[in-house]
């Protein structure tokens, strides 16, 4: 009976995620429809004759009602066809796949460092709460978050690329690069991202664990003669896991969808840079596709967080 309850809850959560994604796709489509301007006009330019515009509109299906165009777009996406970029007539899916991989690589590098570091710092802050170590950790994390990422980015370039010349200032990666070369290329942008997301996760870990530290079972552990770190690790952390997972997933989502500025600064060929390029060219199909992918990442990670929190609850895993 218990397994069935959990399975049902998870299935509900997944269904909700899919529904949410559909709603977002409607919003994205509607949003780009409201934007002023006309795709045929922007392709042909100011000098186009009305006849040529009309022909192109018919060719692109722009004269059909909006809902038909929406479903045509949606079914295309479901079959892996994200459409064609207006500006260079290239297939969006092909152009995106490499860039998405690059963005995910950068995000993964930042996550591998920032998530364990943030949780460790959070736990240390709890162990030495209100002491000098706690204050130093909080101060450092808050300062790094308060600085905008473009500032941190340029600062890193100035110190590590220009002055010390340890890492390249531009993080351009090619297909022919080895894994190590890629790693070296993303050190600076990954560091910038880590500094941005660190404080949020660290503070949340600290707050969630501190909240649990008030519980009676922490006193029980203390009266068993356990050391403070063991108490935090074994008795407090497992009960604080749900809020921590939530904030970690939010930050992972940010690492994917919020990298626009950092990618531009470091000239990193990821999704963000691709998006910025095409927004400036008013390339609506690309903006729609990228928007939808960002939304999918966001919704998926939040869904994973919810499911993980469900599974972390012993009352749900082992009902009476």
């Amino acid at each position, binding site marked *: 009976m218990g397994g069935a309850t959990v399975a049902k809850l998870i299935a509900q959560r997944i269904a909700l995620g899919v529904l949410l994604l559909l709603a977002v796709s409607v919003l994205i489509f509607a949003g780009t429809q409201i934007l002023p301007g006309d795709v045929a006009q922007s392709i042909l330019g100011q000098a186009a004759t009305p006849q040529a515009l009309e022909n192109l509109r018919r060719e692109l299906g722009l004269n059909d009602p909006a809902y038909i165009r929406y479903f045509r777009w949606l079914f295309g996406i479901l079959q892996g066809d994200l459409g064609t970029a207006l500006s260079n007539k290239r297939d969006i899916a092909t152009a995106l796949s490499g860039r998405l991989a690059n963005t995910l690589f950068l995000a993964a590098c930042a996550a591998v460092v920032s998530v364990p570091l943030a949780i460790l710092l959070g736990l240390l802050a709890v162990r030495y709460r209100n002491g000098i170590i706690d204050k130093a950790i909080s101060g450092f994390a808050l300062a790094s978050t308060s600085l905008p990422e473009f500032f941190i980015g340029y600062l890193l370039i100035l110190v590590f690329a220009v002055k010390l010349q340890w890492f390249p200032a531009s993080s351009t990666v090619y297909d022919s690069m080895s894994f190590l070369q890629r790693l070296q290329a993303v050190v600076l942008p990954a560091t910038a991202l880590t500094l941005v997301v660190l404080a949020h996760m660290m503070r949340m870990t600290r707050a969630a664990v501190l909240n649990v530290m008030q*519980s*009676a*079972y922490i*006193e*029980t*552990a*203390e*009266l*068993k*003669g*356990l*050391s403070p770190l*063991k108490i935090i690790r*074994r*008795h407090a952390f*497992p*009960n604080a896991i749900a809020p921590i997972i939530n904030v970690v997933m939010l930050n992972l989502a940010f690492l994917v969808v919020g990298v626009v500025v950092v990618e531009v600064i470091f000239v990193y060929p990821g999704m963000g840079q691709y998006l910025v390029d095409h927004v400036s060219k008013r390339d609506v199909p690309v903006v729609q596709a990228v928007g939808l992918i960002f939304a999918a990442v966001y919704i998926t990670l939040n869904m994973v967080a919810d499911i993980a929190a469900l599974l972390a609850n*012993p*009352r749900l895993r*082992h*009902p*009476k």
Partner: protein
Amino acid sequence: MAEAQSKARPKPRAEGALLDIRNLRIEATVYPPGEKPRDVVLVDDVSLKLERGKVLGLIGESGAGKSTIGLSSMGFGRGGVRLTGGEILLNGRDLRKTGAGGLRRMRGREVCYVAQSAAAAFNPAHKLMDQVVEAALEHRVLSRAAAEKRAIELFRKLSLPNPETIGERYPHQVSGGQLQRVMTAMALCSEPDLIVFDEPTTALDVTTQIDVLAAIKEAIRDTHVAALYITHDLAVVAQVSDEIMVLRHGKLVEWGGTHQIIKEPRQAYTNALVSVHQIEHQEHAPGVTPVLSVKNVTASYGGGTVKVLKNVSVDVFPGQTLAVVGESGSGKSTLARAITGLLPPLEGSITFDGRTLGNKLADRSRDDLRELQMIYQMADVAMNPRQTVGTIIGRPLEFYFKMHGRERDQRVAELLEKIEMGKGYADRYPAELSGGQKQRVCIARALAAKPKLIICDEVTSALDPLVAHGILELLLGLQAEEDVAYLFITHDLATVKSIADSIAVMYRGEVVRYGSKSTVLTPPFDDYTDLLLRSVPEMEIGWLEKAIQGRKMAGAGN
């Protein structure tokens, strides 16, 4: 390293008493709102001695410092409490001079702790077995296999069901009475010299308390562990202790053998604790027309799946008290929710003062609401902490009678007189009042509406016996003056005898026995009423064994 792990840390063993506390002084800093922080003395000049294998009962009202003294034997001060003077000699060394590392090596090894609420004291994220053996493994007393074997033996000794497998369960899968026994097993697992029992049965139903008490007593006897047994219930402590120490306001009142304390107390305060506070209450014969008549009410939570009230019928007569008795889960509070309209019944009707009440709260008139008031167990959460006593009592006057200004203040002052507090309290905040005073304010608030019936839901359960006694006398006095009827919900049979005119005994959602006080409390009893009556601790050495033997049915939660 591997060798060291298999070897238990040696336990110091000195000659003489196991625990020798001399002139203990404990202080804490309090931060009253709007005032400068100041130090208060919680325990002053208390000395005690406990031999190996003996049980010492610490008894007193809340604030007497009994838990604080109990925890001091582990070198622990809860929430910023400081051990500021005297000596705490455990196995010959002074815990006040022992560092943090030394205290850690001692805790869970030489002294273990059993908390009042085992449900809160167990970590919800881990299996019971992992928590039970944790201290034994931490201090390398036993190997994992040996510790689990000992734990299962202890589970069996404490008569827990399925001793082999109960350790695989999580805390939420086990009942409160069972958890309390698992916690006792946890304390015994690392073979300590001393266990501090901090009100281990206070949060349990009487019918469960008796079993847990018997299990604890047997475990203490079989393992020869010494114990500090902390409680406010003298009848309970008399069953398990060799000696009893009476404390008040952090000071020692009297210390002696169990027999001497309960039979020949030397101090006036001990005498007051020992003497039974039975209020002689002459029951009234039922009147002609009831003020409240509950007929065949069935109610459930969760859309009819779980029936929590089954065909309940009771009457309350004007100016009289109906006591509703039963253990937790029997449906007493649900009955109150159905009467007040918070939980619309599925079937049945509720007649009040001659008119049929709407099932739902929204269907009731303002007068229906006014004439039916309620007082709760937790007085402090039933009041807005940011309102003064005057505002709290004045609110029903404004709401029901449109009283304002001087007229209202005058009525508030009258009500404060009625609850024996005086009008000086009108400007105080709830946080400045004692537990008993808070409950009095709640009574005044209920009275302000000039009700015909007040539902009292466990109103004295959270109070010390002497304070509860005062509240009961107040309620009886007000009943005589105002001719108000009470529906008095309680699990405490002594309270029932003091206040009731008629009694309804509830068990699993049904009324199993109902009638005037004298008929309900006169044999022959049904099995459940018999169990309930036998489970009330009596201040008599050897009561526990007699009560366990004479039962016709076993308590729930087994």
